[in-house]
């Protein structure tokens, strides 16, 4: 009974989100470029939210897959493969496979060692990318990238019209898949692993393999987000691989709420809009705001925005 009610509530709030995302396209025509970058980060946050919220994989290196996806899309375009949709899919495939290899090694760990290894791995890849100027362009980044029109019809523009709608379509697709995965029996076993890995193991579930599959799926989504960033901006900078990007996405997800996949959808736009506004005043003002926000979320605002909304809609009842 209760589950059903919460479910329909979530559906309603979810619908509002998609309507608002479409409405924003028409209401703020001057901000479509910024809007597209918000949607890219929302997709990235969604991928991380799945890993963190549903698999319980705590990581400070998720930008690794975002960045690799971005560079794969960029290098492919430079090599002549300029069809955008297949470019995104290939980038997602590459990061997904990469995550299988990495996942089998690192997902044996949890807690602090896992946190540290993911962080160190992303530092390693960042350093390597910084030095491998032949592949990544180093500090200058990859420039001179161009893509063919989407579906052969829609041309890339500077005002971000296509970017916005194209990214929104990808986000909708990934969200649809993510929701199916979460509500599937596989998603349920994932929740079991998150809550009690030992018991799941005793029940005969192949814990490591399931974690790796989930991790790989999340990495593929992150790679898709990275490829979209490349296509939207026609540029790849080293920033996509940095520790800051990993921390950004972690904060977005937690701000939105880790217990629901809607958390990422809410956290990323709020985070980026607040960032956009405060950075107009002073870039370091932003760090103060985000620092205070982070401490606030941990101490007073558990469950993030999604948790807060749930409480409001349920008339003050807490779960």
């Amino acid at each position, binding site marked *: 009974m209760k589950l059903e009610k919460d479910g329909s509530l979530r559906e309603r709030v979810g619908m509002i989100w998609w309507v608002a995302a479409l409405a924003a396209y028409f209401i703020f025509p001057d901000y479509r470029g910024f809007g597209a970058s918000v949607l890219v980060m929302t997709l990235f946050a969604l991928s991380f939210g799945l890993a963190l919220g549903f698999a319980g994989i705590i990581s400070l290196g998720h930008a690794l897959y975002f960045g690799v996806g971005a560079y794969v899309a960029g290098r492919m375009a430079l090599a002549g493969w300029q069809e955008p949709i297949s470019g995104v899919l290939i980038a997602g495939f590459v990061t997904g496979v990469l995550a299988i290899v990495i996942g089998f090694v690192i997902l044996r*760990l949890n807690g602090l060692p896992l946190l540290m290894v993911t962080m160190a791995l992303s*530092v390693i890849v960042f350093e390597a990318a910084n030095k491998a100027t032949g592949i990544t362009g180093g500090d200058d980044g990859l420039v001179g990238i161009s893509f063919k029109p989407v579906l052969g019809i829609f041309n890339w523009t500077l005002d971000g019209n296509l970017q916005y709608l194209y990214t929104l379509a990808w986000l909708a697709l990934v969200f649809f898949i993510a929701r199916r995965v979460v509500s599937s029996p596989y998603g349920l076993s994932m929740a079991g692993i998150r809550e009690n890995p030992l018991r799941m193991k005793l029940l005969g579930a192949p814990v490591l393999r399931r974690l790796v599959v989930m991790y790989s799926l999340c990495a593929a989504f992150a790679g898709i987000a990275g490829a979209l960033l490349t296509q939207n901006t026609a540029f790849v900078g080293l920033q996509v691989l940095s*520790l800051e990007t990993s921390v950004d996405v972690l904060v977005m997800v937690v701000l939105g709420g880790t217990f629901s996949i809607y958390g990422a959808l809410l956290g990323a736009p709020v985070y980026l809009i607040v960032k956009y506004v405060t950075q107009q005043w002073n870039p370091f003002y932003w*760090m103060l705001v985000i620092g205070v926000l982070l*401490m606030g979320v941990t101490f007073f605002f558990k469950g993030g925005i999604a948790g807060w909304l749930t409480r409001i809609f349920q008339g003050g009842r807490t779960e």
Partner: protein
Amino acid sequence: MDQITPAASFILLYGVSYGIVLFVISIGLVLTLGLMRVVNLAHGVFAVLGGYLAFNLPSLLGIGFLASVFITLVLVLLVSFVLERVFFRRLFGMTELEQVLATIGFCFAFIALLTFAFGPNVLATKYPEWMSGNFSLLGRQFPFYRVFVMACGLVILLALWLLFDHTNFGATLRACVDNQSMAKATGINVNWYFSVAFAIGAGLAAIGGIVGAGMLPLEPLYPFKHLPLFLTIVALSGFGNIKASLVVSLVVGLVDTAGRYFVPELGAFTVFTLLVILVLWRPQGLLAGWK
């Protein structure tokens, strides 16, 4: 042979002094993790705070460097004692994720405040005359500063060894690390020891920040920039194992220096690759299970 000896002495001198700075900074982190099971991503804050105070106080107050270091230490001890009571204490028993978020938030807020106060650039640090200068060894010039760092490290090591292994305070503290509830049951005021240990850790980090400013330049982003390094050392040290953290810090210092000496184009790549392999090999800590 003519090539090898200078190279070896360079790596030894630079690597060991670098490792010692890393060790002095991470002790506090190892202690908080061992004592309170708190993952404190904001520990670098105390190092950079110490550095900024120590190098700015002489011109602000018109005092000498040593007096400034002394005042800095007193200030950092006080500030960290209070912060432990009002902030870090609240992180007990929270999940690792929550601890990571709260402390990284603290770290960000501090970086912003430091930038407001001193600007975003690297702080110009100048050690007093008697610490600078060179000496020659095996036909190569070496800065005296590196030897001074090693001497500082030795003094701190000796002091820590006396404190932890040969005083009542140290024995009580070790009891708290090993078995908190048993320590409580024997009437030890565990909370007070937490605060004091935290303040000691912060004070040592401040010393590390001051002494190590020649290797880890002081800038507002310092606590975030060097976070992967500090955190890796702590993860490899195991919970609350200070002796292991000395070994790990020295290994990191030597490998990083050797890596940058022989293959400078790889940068931090070498040392982080080693660290990842070590953590995967021994997730419980490098010396876990050793007696």
